[in-house]
């Protein structure tokens, strides 16, 4: 393993111990998306099979992007950031460490509804769902890290910005209502959300109606991921030292 990768995983281990592997965080990560989805689905005449793609997508989206926005403000506030920046690790490695932490947390939590879905419904392709979970978790974790670039030392400010960005994304991404059923304007708006394409892939895998070829979905999510990573790197390089 190269030295850079080793250092990235030091950051991952640190983040896991301090931020992710806490019972309340894990329980919240599982329960919150589940109840959020139920709240919008109860009373509507939908099958269990129809619910799963939505639950999987929301769990992936929320868990991967939930903690990342709070890490740099928290580390600034607790005065631990300067020590990390004084060690021989680049800002790029720190950012990748944060992204991978969010990815692993999101991936692990999304596997739970995915495994449950296997008992209830037959999937067209397990591999496609798994690939979507991997790519989607990475993409949404990168989005969380991008949100964390806002230079504040108050985690609640960062979480507020995170909610402002993330909640609208859910409602424009065809999670509760399929994109095919949205009005024309809604369809156009849904294209700017990476979650739209993940939901489309998962609906396809569950044998439901999708609106785009899945290779296009994967390509667009991949491009969103690259965009989020590059933006995170550029903004963190600019703002991280200014947090001190």
């Amino acid at each position, binding site marked *: 393993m190269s030295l850079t990768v*080793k250092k990235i995983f*030091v950051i991952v281990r640190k983040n896991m111990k*301090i931020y992710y592997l806490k019972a309340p965080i894990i329980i919240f990560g599982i329960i919150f998306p589940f109840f959020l989805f139920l709240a919008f689905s109860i009373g509507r005449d939908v099958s269990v099979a129809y619910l799963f793609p939505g639950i999987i997508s929301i769990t992936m989206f929320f868990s991967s992007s939930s903690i990342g926005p709070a890490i740099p403000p928290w580390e600034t506030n607790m005065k631990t950031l300067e*020590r*990390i920046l*004084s*060690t*021989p690790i*680049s800002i790029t490695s720190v950012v990748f460490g944060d992204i991978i932490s969010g990815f692993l947390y999101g991936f692990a939590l999304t596997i739970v509804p995915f495994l449950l879905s296997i008992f209830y419904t037959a999937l067209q392709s397990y591999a496609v769902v798994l690939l979507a979970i991997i790519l989607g978790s990475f993409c949404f974790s990168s989005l969380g890290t991008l949100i964390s670039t806002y230079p504040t030392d108050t985690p609640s400010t960062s979480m507020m910005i995170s909610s402002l960005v993330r909640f609208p994304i859910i409602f424009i991404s065809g999670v509760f209502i399929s994109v095919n059923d949205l009005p024309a304007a809604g369809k156009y708006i849904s294209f700017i959300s990476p979650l739209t394409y993940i939901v489309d892939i998962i609906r396809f895998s569950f044998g439901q109606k999708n609106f785009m070829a899945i290779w296009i979905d994967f390509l667009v999510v991949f491009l969103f991921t690259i965009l989020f990573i590059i933006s995170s790197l550029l903004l963190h390089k600019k703002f991280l*030292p200014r947090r001190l």
Partner: protein
Amino acid sequence: MDEVIRINKLTKVFNGLVAVNNVSFVINEGKIFGLLGPNGAGKTTTIRMLTGIIEPTSGDIEIFGLNIKKHLLEIKEKIGVLPELANPYMDLSAWENIMIMADLYNLDKKVKISRANEYLELFGLSEFRQKKVKGFSKGMKQRLQIIMALIHEPRLLFLDEPTTGLDIQSVKLIRDIIKEKNVKEKTTIFLTTHNIAEASVLCDRVAIMDKGKILICDSPINLQKIFTSTQSLEIMFDTSSKDISFIPEYLSSRVEAKELISGIEISKDRDAIKIYTFDPVSLIAPVLEFSKANGLKISSVNTYGPSLEEVFLKIINEGG
């Protein structure tokens, strides 16, 4: 002797405010260099630039002969840093905090375990290794942070206010270990402090900084020699007496004595007088004459060289 740090015309401007202004100096291997100054002088900004945490607005920094812009990570491998306002991770144990640092410096497993045990013992934290840091006292946290800065045995150590606000035992322990590291392992140490006594005891060379500028840079002894006018003559009397108040007037009437004096302080109890002068011995005779004439009994006469604190205040007040 090899140069460890060379900085040339280093300047840092934050939103139009000049925090560090055209600073240049060289530090040789195995030396303890103290950067003194009041709060807001620019000490921490200087250390942050030297450790590569922030970039200078202009100027050059070379550490171990390497330009910091081009060889940042290589330099960071060789230096240890104790930032002024840093904390260890509160939710982790002392051991976990040290291991994070050891892993970031890519230490071998055996080496990191053996060094961590050794330093925990040395800094008196051995029995607390598995305790979470949030239960530690300020002194314990600071000792842990010094271990975190030393775990890779750096050749150059930056300590930003290492003993500020600590209990006496922690201060003594930290100072002793700094000195030992310097003497036994020839570790070069860059220390910022506003504790003059600390700089006087530890440092080979001291720079006094204010408003972003280095006002003077020399050994503590040479600084004291430069400011000989802050030598003093202290005379203590057996009993308090109003007559002591007339000593300044008497000395002023003696032209040859008047020219020697730069300041006079009388104690609140009127039983002692301190005269600042560059020639304390010449003032003893006129004071004795006055005392004899006024029936004052002298209990002691002492002469003092200037303390580093007096030098510091004089430089800061005069702005160099």
